[in-house]
Structures are given as structure tokens and as C-alpha cells.
């Protein structure tokens, strides 16, 4: 009987299905960001004026919050592999808490835009902004639930899958932040 052939996918860290999900999400957000910049070409002054209403500093702080949260999730995986359940749960709780901070700051931005009479259909900028950041925030919320679940399971495989999803959320934000908030 022949031994199964080695595949390049055997080197992939974590579950293949989690990577399929990560690639799918990156493709969706990537298309959204390209669409945003393409539509911006039709009205650069309008996009610049609309961008001025966003919480740029809050979004910068949120980037620090998410990359720190991702660091805690990465440390939780190391703790899981070392069999340190209490530590991994504390680290995942910290990561989830920072996810909550991210959503709180994001909600403040939405509330201020709403109070200023700016909504989804006020300008194409806000349509893209709310679609992209709202979809991302939904992923942050799902990630918080997932971190809680894998913290309860507390196995290295589960923590690796949960942390990978959380890092994908982080990765999307570091690409979204400069495109929507800075340039």
C-alpha cells in the first residue's frame, strides 16, 4: 500500500477549515476596501469631508486595542500548549475584554455620526464606512463569543482555532484603518 503523498497544506498551522474561513473573509473585506477607494475617485472632496466626521483618534486607539488583544490571544495559545489552563483562560478573558473596549469606542463613533444626522445613505463614504466597519464589528462580537467558547473548552486545538479567527479580525482592521480613516 502506498503512503499518502505529502501536501504543502500539511505545513499549515491550525485547521484547514479555519484558513478557508480566513481567506474568504479577507477576500470579502479586500473587495470592499478596493471598492471604497475606486468609488472615492468619483468624489475625492466629498470623501475627504465625510472622513473628517469620523473618530480618527478613537480608531487609532482601537488599533492599539486590537493588536494588544491579538497578542493576549497568541499568548493564550502558548499557555494552552503548556497545559496552563488558568493562564490561558485569563489571557483569553483579557483578549475578549479588549474586544469589548473596541466595540464601545466604535459605538461612540456611530452614536456621534447619528447625532450629527449622518447615516448610511448620507453619502457614499458613509455607506462604505458603515458596511465595512459594521461587518467588522460583527466579527469582533462573534470573536468575543468564540474566545469565550474556546476558553471553556481550553484545549490547544480549540484555542488555536479561536485565536486564528481573532487574528483575522485584527488583520482586517489594520488594513481597514488606514484606508477608511487616514488616507
Amino acid at each position, binding site marked *: 500500500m502506498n503512503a499518502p503523498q505529502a501536501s*504543502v*497544506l500539511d*505545513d*499549515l*498551522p*491550525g485547521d484547514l477549515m479555519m484558513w478557508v474561513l*480566513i481567506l474568504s473573509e479577507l477576500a470579502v473585506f*479586500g473587495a470592499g*476596501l*478596493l471598492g471604497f*477607494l*475606486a468609488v*472615492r*475617485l468619483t468624489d*475625492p472632496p466629498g470623501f475627504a469631508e465625510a472622513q473628517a466626521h469620523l473618530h*480618527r*483618534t478613537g480608531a*487609532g486607539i482601537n*488599533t*492599539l486595542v486590537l*493588536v*494588544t488583544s*491579538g*497578542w493576549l*490571544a*497568541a*499568548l493564550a495559545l*502558548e499557555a494552552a500548549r503548556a497545559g496552563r489552563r488558568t493562564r490561558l483562560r485569563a489571557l483569553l478573558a483579557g483578549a475578549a475584554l479588549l474586544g469589548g473596549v473596541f466595540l464601545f469606542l466604535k459605538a461612540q463613533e456611530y452614536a456621534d455620526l447619528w447625532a450629527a444626522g449622518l447615516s448610511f445613505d448620507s453619502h457614499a463614504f458613509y455607506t462604505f464606512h458603515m458596511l465595512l466597519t459594521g461587518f467588522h464589528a460583527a466579527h469582533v462580537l462573534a470573536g468575543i463569543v468564540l474566545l469565550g467558547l474556546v476558553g471553556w473548552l481550553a484545549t490547544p486545538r480549540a484555542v488555536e482555532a479561536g*485565536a*486564528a479567527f481573532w*487574528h*483575522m479580525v*485584527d*488583520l482586517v482592521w*489594520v*488594513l481597514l*484603518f*488606514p*484606508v477608511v480613516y*487616514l*488616507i
Partner: protein
Amino acid sequence: MSVTRAWAWLIALTATSTAVAATGLSGRWLALVVLALAWAKAELILNRYLHLAQAPNIARGFALGLALFMLALTGLAVAIP
């Protein structure tokens, strides 16, 4: 590189992006600088947080895809008349 060192780099790159934007730099130069910094952050997350550095062949594939995406973003960002 440890995940803690990767985190320190991510913090430094994020602070640099925000500082560059706060200098008043605008237009094409701002886009070029902050998108380059975002590219570096994305590579760090892929290779260190998601551990693709342990799978060099796959990491190269992701790096190529990310490079093409960042070039497309940059092209659209600097194409403003």
C-alpha cells in the same frame, strides 16, 4: 521573533501611522506611508500571530497575494486627480 516582540513592533508601527497622519501630511505621500506601514503590520500578523513563518511555502503565497492587494490599494489611493 516572539509574539511579544511582534506585538511591540505592531504598537510601534501603529503609533508611527497615527503620528504621520497627525503631522498634516496629506494626499499621495500620506497614502504611500500609511499603506506601507499597514502592509508591514499585516505581514507581522500573518507570520507571527498566525504562525505562517513556520510554513515558508505558504507564507510566500500569502505574501504574494498581500503584495498584489496592497499595490492595488496604493494605485487607487494615489490615482486621485
